[in-house]
């Protein structure tokens, strides 16, 4: 598929498809129409490594004892901004990510908009919509 220039690509990781789809819809309403929802850690790692991504929204606990942190490490190494969306709170997040923004689940469209806005502003790398 040809990528439309200037439209930010977003990696969205959430092991619960229903919740992920809800976030996807919120992002679409905010104008970020190119969100890719991934539900499995293995796929998320692959996407983080090889896809063009402007920023990422990461669910922390992916079920079955898997956590999203390897994906976050890859994104950090690629200087791609990301935020954590979690229902578990801040204490489950390793220290190396302590300065990353965290969005507490469940969140409203407004909270997501504010968090994503901050993320884009803080990192000029992430393309504005």
């Amino acid at each position: 598929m040809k990528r439309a220039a200037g439209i930010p690509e977003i990696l969205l990781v959430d092991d619960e498809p229903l919740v992920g789809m809800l976030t996807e819809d919120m992002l679409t309403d905010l104008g970020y129409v190119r969100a890719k929802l991934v539900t499995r850690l293995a796929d998320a790692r692959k996407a983080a490594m090889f896809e063009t991504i402007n920023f990422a929204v990461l669910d922390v606990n992916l079920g079955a004892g898997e956590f999203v942190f390897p994906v976050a490490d890859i994104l950090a190494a690629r200087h791609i901004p990301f935020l954590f969306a979690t229902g578990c709170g801040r204490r489950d997040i390793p220290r190396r990510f302590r300065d990353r923004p965290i969005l507490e689940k469940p969140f409203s469209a407004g909270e997501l908009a504010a968090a994503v806005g901050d993320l884009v502003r803080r990192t000029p790398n992430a393309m504005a919509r």
Partner: protein
Amino acid sequence: MAKLDAGPLRDENSAEFMPTTGQAGETVQTAPSNPSIWPLLITKEAPPTPGVFAFRVSVLVLALATATALRAAFGALVPGVPFAFYYPAILAVALLCGWQFGALALLFALALSWFMFVPAAFDFAAPTAAQWISLAAMAGVGLCLVAVTEALRTALARAQASEARYRELLGATSGIVFLTSPSGHVSTPQHGWSEVTGMVWPEYGSLGWLKAVHSDDQAILKGERPPRAHQADLRIWSKDDNNWRWFHMRAVPLTNARAELTGWMSALSDVHERRMARERQEMMLGEQRHRLKNLITVIDSLATWSNPRNDPAVDAYLKKFLGRLRALGGVGDQIVAAEWKELETGAVVRNALAPFLEENSARIRISGPRLMLSEQTAGSLALGIHEMATNALKYGALASKDGKIFVEWSRTPRAGDEDIAFEWREQDGPPVAPPDREGFGLRLIRFVPAREKDGKVQIEYRPAGFYCRISWTAVASG
């Protein structure tokens, strides 16, 4: 810092290993606690302690003196073997004191024979040819005796060391090692049994040990067991806890050369804490599921009660919402009922289709092998099926009189894994066309195998009707 720490550690190690390396050349390492007398006699430590040395010299002197006395008293008993009395003496010395003393005994025996019994007696006179041959034969046979005895001693020492190591190993295992006859009878004290159960030998001899095994777990141990390795969890009375404790048993059949069962060797390890933790966890998980199930019921009633009456738009919305909620909640009910965290596909499909089967049971054909699904995939599948059935009722096979739906799934083994394919095929319904925009229902369907390996969803609007194939790879299970 690291360097400072490593220094003394290395010194400690080398100091600890020093005596061992000093004796590396010796084949025999005896366990100090071993009650057998053999280690005292065959230990090859060099040099032997004064006590051992004195013992060996005494054996040498005693054996030679006895042989000489017997030869003097009885003469050459065996014709043609004039010095036969010395052979047992050399054998005894070589066996008890090692080959060095055996060789010494042979030399002394030769000298004594020559001096005392080769005419002229009490004189090292030059022997005749026949006497030469006698002495040479004695030297040859004596050397063979010493050599064979030494080989025997080495073999004994090896067996001894091997047994000592086996005992040390047994002592190092924390659990119980249990040896029984094929029928479960115990005839010797067993490692670890007294420590755990407080039973004293021979209290647990014969079948007495079964008293310390929980009555519910005795069935696995009683009666004929097929002679192959097996394992089981069982409860054993713990004297420290004054209660039952869970042990994991691994039993291996012991067989003789004719492959007949001669007994059972069982290793029992304490898994009590682990098992208790798992049970607590499962109980909590069950509790959570119950709460979730109740929560869904509460949401269902809240939604129903909050409905302002006679508003068709809200009615339609509520119907859609409750349909989906109940499809998901049905899986929750099944999970609570199921003992394991997996669900059978047939049950999931029938449960999700229950509202539709009432009126269309003859038009929906469900078939497929027994296939277990994870809780998550079962939930997604139930939702997906609900969406497809709802669509079929509105636009598809269930919207016409003759329409049929085939719901089929299959398992295909492939390189240790299994290819799972789930198909939904509609037939003889009104013509279908792809929607302009993919709605929520279709998106739900696309995420059914989201948590499975290689999950794929294929949706086709065929002339015969709507078709959907959901496939993924599963690790094969029984």
